[in-house]
């Protein structure tokens, strides 16, 4: 009887093994129905009781892993060699090892392990772990999610991405410089493919930026005084609607010395896609060994989007990416080690000292900002606040630093 049972066990295990496909391999689980519908069960007309007996026996042998699913109990196969590792272990060791085994790539925190196994004696628990480690069955690592948690994992497998943090972590630390370089590189790809760069020689820029036919002087007479006043100064709120050809932006273009980036026309179907970026990163071999998957690159793209540097653009079915504020970017490529330059937008509040004043919330009428002299108490405050200065202190330098842009403001003469 026992022999027959052993034989049946083998047959059943092999039948299950044959059912495994390449994709899921040993993580495929079998429900009772699955088992019953195996050809071997049907051929031998095995009744449920025998089958359950076999399953139980296999489970005891560690070759079946019992699991619970939503539809009832299921079993997963454990490879033969893994099952063999249980042999020769003591009872407690088996208990601990089976928990670690079941935790898989995620690993299991030492504290959780102790609670689950119910081994209360500290020394005993540590001994077991030590023994298992000595047998090279398990190994410990630190999870990135909880830096202080010592976790255990089977020695034969690597910690999962969730536990190591994927390519972004080096030895459990977030590799920020790596990420930053990658962000910039990815941004460069996007910028290059999603924009049109005017060439630097004078002849070809012409077509792109200046009219081939319209003489510059048309309608000069319509120019307002403000436009004249703004000439040669910083472009401001008004310059844009002026019919002024000599604003720096224009001037820069017509010089033809400096390349600028232009947006692509609508419907441009060549914006770089996620797959292309992944490919280019791989081709450029920037990551040295670590292979970035599409999901990793997507993470980078998400960050770039949150940073407000790129946007997603759907043309037809193709989802591509392009840089925002394209004409404000430096057309040259990113050089590792440098900080890529691009001009930040600013508004009235960020320019004013009040926008960065650390005590702005406390500021009241009659405080130093509104008084001629800066009181000493405020300079004392300034010392405690470090580099950030209360605005009252920087006012005088601020006023002189303001650009001379002057729309008439309040100046209305009352007749």
């Amino acid at each position, binding site marked *: 009887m026992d022999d027959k049972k052993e034989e049946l066990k083998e047959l059943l295990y092999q039948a299950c093994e044959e059912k495994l496909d390449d994709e899921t391999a040993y993580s495929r689980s079998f429900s009772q129905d699955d088992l019953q519908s195996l050809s071997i069960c049907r051929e031998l007309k095995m009744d449920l009781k025998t089958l359950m007996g076999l399953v139980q026996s296999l489970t005891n042998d560690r070759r079946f892993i019992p699991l619970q699913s939503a539809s009832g109990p299921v079993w997963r196969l454990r490879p033969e060699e893994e099952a063999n590792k249980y042999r020769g272990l003591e009872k407690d060791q088996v208990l601990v090892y089976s928990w670690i085994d079941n935790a898989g790539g995620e690993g299991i925190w030492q504290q959780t392990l102790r609670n689950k196994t119910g081994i209360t004696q500290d020394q005993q628990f540590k001994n077991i772990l030590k023994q298992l480690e000595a047998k090279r069955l398990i190994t410990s690592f630190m999870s990135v*999610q909880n830096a202080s948690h010592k976790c255990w994992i089977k020695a034969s497998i690597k910690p999962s991405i969730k536990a190591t943090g994927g390519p972004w972590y080096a030895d459990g630390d*977030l590799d920020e410089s790596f*990420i930053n370089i990658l962000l910039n590189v990815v941004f460069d790809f996007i910028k290059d493919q999603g*924009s*049109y760069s005017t060439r630097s020689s004078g002849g070809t820029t012409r077509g792109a930026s200046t*009219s081939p*036919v*319209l003489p510059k002087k*048309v309608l000069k*007479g319509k120019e307002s005084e403000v436009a004249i006043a703004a000439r040669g100064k910083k472009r401001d*709120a008004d310059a*844009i*609607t002026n*019919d002024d050809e000599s604003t720096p932006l224009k001037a820069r273009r017509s010089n033809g010395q400096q390349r600028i980036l*232009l*947006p*692509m*026309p*609508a*419907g*441009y*179907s*060549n914006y770089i896609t996620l797959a292309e970026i992944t490919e280019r990163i791989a081709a450029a071999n920037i990551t040295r060994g670590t292979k970035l998957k599409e999901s990793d690159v997507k*993470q*980078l793209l998400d*960050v770039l989007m*949150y*940073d407000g540097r790129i*946007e997603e653009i*759907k*043309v*037809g*079915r193709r989802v591509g990416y392009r840089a*925002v504020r394209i*004409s404000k970017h430096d057309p040259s490529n990113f050089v590792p080690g440098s900080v890529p330059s691009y001009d930040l*937008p*600013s*508004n*009235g509040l*960020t*320019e*004013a000292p*009040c*926008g*960065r004043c650390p005590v702005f919330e406390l500021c009241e009428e009659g405080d130093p*900002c*509104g*008084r*001629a002299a800066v009181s000493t108490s405020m300079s004392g405050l300034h010392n405690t606040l470090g580099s950030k200065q209360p*605005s009252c202190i920087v*006012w005088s330098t601020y006023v*002189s630093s303001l650009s*001379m*842009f002057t*729309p*008439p*403001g*309040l100046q*209305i003469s*009352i007749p």
Partner: protein
Amino acid sequence: MASSTQTKNAAELCVLLIRELYGQLPSRIFEILLSSGRSTVQQLGRISSTSLRNVRHGLAVLVQQNLVYHYTDSENSRTIYEANHYYAYNIVRNGKILDCTHRNYGEAAKRIVHLVMASGHMRVGSIVDAYLKNHGKPANNVNGSPEPTNGHESGDDPFEDAAEEEPQVSGHQVLDDIAHLIAIGILEPLSPKMLQSPEDIKSEVDKDLMKAYPSGLRGKQKGEHESRVVNTVREIRNRSQHLKMQLEPTYLYGSGAKRRKLANGDRTHGFSAANDDDPIEDTILLRVNYEKCLVELRNQRLCQFVDDNIGYTTARVYGAMLTALSKKLSCCQPDPTDDSIDPMNPPTVTTIEIFEYLKPSVDVFGGIGKPSADQINVTSAEKVERNPPSGDGDGDEAGYDAQTSIEEPDNDDDDDVDMEMANGYHLNGTHGGDDGEVSGQNGTKDTKVSFADKGPTKAERMQRMRQHLLILAESGIHFVRHSGTRDQGEWTVDFEILIRQLRFLELDTIIEDTFGREGLRLIKILRAKGKIDDKTLPTMALMQKGDVHMKMVEMELAGFLDVQEVPRDNNRVAARTLFLWFFDEHRTLTRTLDNTYKAMVRHLQRLEVEGQKKKNILSIVERTDVQGMEQEKLSGDAYNEYQQFLDIQSRLLGQVSKLDDLVSVLRDY
């Protein structure tokens, strides 16, 4: 108005603005009106400890400048005054409005608006008189003859002429300009009702209508009555629109040729139209309609937004589009109770209309990249969205497959479409000749530049302009919506969505400036995802946990973020609590707005401080015998010091107006 909840800083700002422009007394009275609410003259006198005579003086200034509402109760004939902070705040925009009027409607329009602005409200007759007094006579004097010499040099270039020499004006012409401004909506006729606060008007209407129900309201009558009140109030408000509507056909949609000649000051044909009656009566009171001015200012700001986001040329095209569109808009934030405005069908403009507003100097051939034609997906570019995007703008998923099935063959087979598109990309394209004639009939505004043979035709220019519009439509910011195909394309702007983006942009600028790129990243994650737990953030932002934490706390202290604690069990220990971060849009906007007011207040106070420092000089300059000829009367040093002060003043006021740009975006647009 969204600003009906006045903050302390806003009130302070209004008072300072009034003091800067109209002096101590009116500002003091305005301050009291703000702090103690509606008051009578007697109450004002008591609170301010000023003589009633002075109070009346102050009030007169305020009334003249539309800065107070006043309401006389018909029963006890007592007059109550109430501060109109909306007008008070708008003082700060005066300069910008003049600037904008000048740019869009020319010198004469600016002078008229300036006159009206300076005196608050004005009769048409006095505007004409004052205008002629200020600007009419000098020209005559120069010419030495009362009769303007017509067409003396206007043959060559009417534009140059207009800018460099004072055109000679007649009363007719000024009236014409005024009528034009009314038709646009920049000036509005003032009726006594408009000086009453909206609440007063409403309660009066309410009282009037209640006379019909002597026994009070019952059941259904209540709703009926309420809708009647709302309608009557609106009718009263719209009463001032009658004149505008009368003038609109002639001045906005009609004889464009006549208008343009006027603007150029070219009166060669002596047409100044004795055949017409004067378009408006002398006795009508006019004041500046800030709501319409805001629309114009908003256009300007949006152009700037496009310039920043896409490029200079596209911004110019956008400007033309907005100008065309704003003809159909009277204010930035339409009254939600008004049934005549359908939010699903905002006004649209066609490509041809836009083209008429495009300045000939705009080089539409620049500013767009030139990929090869096979890289262009025409179907996607020309996608028409009939309805405003809903929320996140993912609404087009449904029609997506149908669309792509058409799109496949178009690169090879569908030559017509391709040709039309290619039109834009090849500068000296040979096609489009036929189109040129077709649409040539429509364009009324000639570029007045005669090109050599190879110049782009009008059709080509229009095609290129369309490309810019398509870029705008494609952008994720929803600058324009391609809403139809009539007349080579209909376009509209969903202002509400666009302005919300603009608001976020301004906030982002502040956040990025204060907390760096990482701070912005975190906030944008929260904005995209809603409430997020402490632990998921670092992974999403690819940042160190500690750094994330520090930034979050920093931003929470500054009031940009909020945190919600959700205990997982009854013990409420920190370890068993979820910390959910979130970004409260409304609160952050209000706070930033208030901070901006405060910064403006500080700037104005600083201006006073600077004034105090140079008190000696300024007191001399204020003397009537020195005013206007400072350079001759002041000694060298004193004059330099005076110049320094002017310098500082203009810098500070310039900055104040930049802060006002921010307020406009956050509050008014």
